[in-house]
């Protein structure tokens, strides 16, 4: 699988013709810019991933849409979105999985997890499934929450201070996804983009 950094614009579309990881990073994005990544599956037997990682600094906003559109049979897609929200940030995310009638034997998953660090945060999430074929497997999951205080407590009992503890947890939160990036150079780039 090849790893590819994408810079999503208002309407970025890709025809997926080989197994690819599309990685979107938002560290140098203008505030509030609308971005959309759409993958269209027109070749049988192809699988792809959309990986979006962001750490939104104070008072910034993000408008992100991802679309996995399955048109032919036997394709698979995994959409992974991981975000960290600092104080007074707004995040708007729409994640679509569209499976057309002909696209039997599709599997498509979406997972959107947001970790809230600051106060006054607005987080809007709309994971959408539109499924017209029956022999498919599709699911999505979305969750939002603060860091579990038990985890912070544990790390503090091990000698870390509160800031170090939460940094470590955030690092772990991103690492699980970073590890799945095949290309080491791209992985490095992505890891730097989400550092505090």
């Amino acid at each position, binding site marked *: 699988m090849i790893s590819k950094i994408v810079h999503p614009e208002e309407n970025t579309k890709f025809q997926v013709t080989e197994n690819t990881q599309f990685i979107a990073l938002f560290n140098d994005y203008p505030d509030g810019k609308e971005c959309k990544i759409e993958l269209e599956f027109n070749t049988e037997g192809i699988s792809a991933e959309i990986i979006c990682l962001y750490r939104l600094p104070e008072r910034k906003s993000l408008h992100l849409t991802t679309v996995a559109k399955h048109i032919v049979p036997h394709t698979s897609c995994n959409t992974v979105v991981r975000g960290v929200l600092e104080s007074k940030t707004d995040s708007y995310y729409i994640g679509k999985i569209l499976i057309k009638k002909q696209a039997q034997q599709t599997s498509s998953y979406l997972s959107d997890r947001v970790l809230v660090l600051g106060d006054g945060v607005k987080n809007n999430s709309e994971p959408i499934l539109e499924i017209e074929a029956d022999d498919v497997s599709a*699911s999505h999951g979305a969750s939002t929450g603060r860091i579990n205080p038990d985890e912070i407590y544990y790390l503090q009992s091990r000698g870390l201070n509160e800031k170090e503890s939460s940094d470590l947890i955030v690092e772990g939160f991103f690492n699980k996804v970073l590890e799945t990036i095949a290309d080491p150079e791209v992985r490095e780039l992505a890891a730097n983009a989400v550092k505090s």
Partner: protein
Amino acid sequence: MSEKPKAVKKQKSNVGDLRADYKTKYGFNMPDKSVYRTKRGLNEEVIRDISKTKDEPEWMLNFRLRAYKTFKERPMPQWGANLNDINFDEIVYYLKPTDQEKRSWEDVPEEIKQTFERLGIPQAEREFLAGVKAQYDSEVAYSSLRDELEEEGVIFLSTDEALRKYPQLFEEYFGKAIPPADNKFAALNSAVWSGGSFVYIPKGVEVKRPLQAYFRINAARMGQFERTLIIAEEGSFAHYVEGCTAPVYSSDSLHAAVVEVFVKPGARFRYTTIQNWSNDVYNLVTKRARVEKDGVMEWIDGNLGSKITMKYPSCYLVGENAHGEVLSIAYAGQGMHQDAGAKMIHLAPNTSSTIISKSISAYGGRTSYRGLVNVSPLAENSKSRVECDALILDADSASDTFPVMKISNSSAQIEHEATVSKIGEEKLFYLMSRGLTEPEAMSLIVSGFIEPIVKELPMEYSLELNRLIELEMEGSVG
């Protein structure tokens, strides 16, 4: 690869038309013996007529007229299912089947009795029920309420009766959770409402047995606009159950109900609906509960049948620690679109909500889950969990999930999960290796799929729902 489509095909031919038996089992249409009915179509005169026939106070007439104005002004909703085929001029907005409400079973007219018999409400079962309110067409035709409940001060009447008997209580709550301007169909209901139930549970009273109402539409092209108003006072508990089995007729019929529930501090109220409208009914219902401190509201919603259902029971969690819950089952067969879901509005600290939705689509049917979880900035430490599972039984059917999460408080903990799948071939294979036929195996898997919700129903309703699902699946044998 070459085997898989074959398996799908075989499964399809076995399933047959799930609703093929509907006409013989539930499709009956008693001769229409209405005493009074309005002309088709809607105008101010019709509304004045309805209000006059019911001998209503002036404020109610004004309320209806204002709502009618709102109805005319509001555009048709352009999202969700396609409602453009509804012809509001072809609908009869009010009809009254019998002269007055009947108290004892013996007085109920023979056809109506027959209808209930075919619906399967056994006489003996009535002993178990706290009170039976059966709505036949627009008016409550038969009602009984056990003496013990009356002694405790529980009011369980038709909404029209309640307006006559308890005007003050009525005016205080009526239209306060769902104002006519809420949406086009709430406005329509507010203008022409008739029938429905009024439930008042006094402070601290626990009603152990479920309160039941049966809703029916009989005359073709008859819109049913029942209006239900429920007030659960502090610390009370009750369970209200309604079921609908509409007979088959050819022209499109409209059902636009409004249900308002007020859950006071520490009260718990459960509202169960099992609907099996015939598949020419537009079912567009607005249901809303206002839940105060420590209150619990539970909506259990079973949607089978109808042409289009658009229904999103909601809980406004306005008091601390309030809890809202929606359990929903939808089945969409040929030509049906079930657009159902739930709304949870968290407006106070420590509020929590749960939504569990299970949907099944077959024969070109479409199920859509449409939901909203809204956490306001004031709702510190609120929690919400949403789970939607959809089963697609054949290649012609479809399923959508449209959840919206608007979270404006940093401390909220929100989870959402949805899956769409078909019946697993391994599961089918395993059950068939145990001697079940394919349709039996499918039926068993579907029963298992909806089990988490069915087990929450009162006994006789879970039986009825199982009967209905069995009937849907029964076609699969032939």
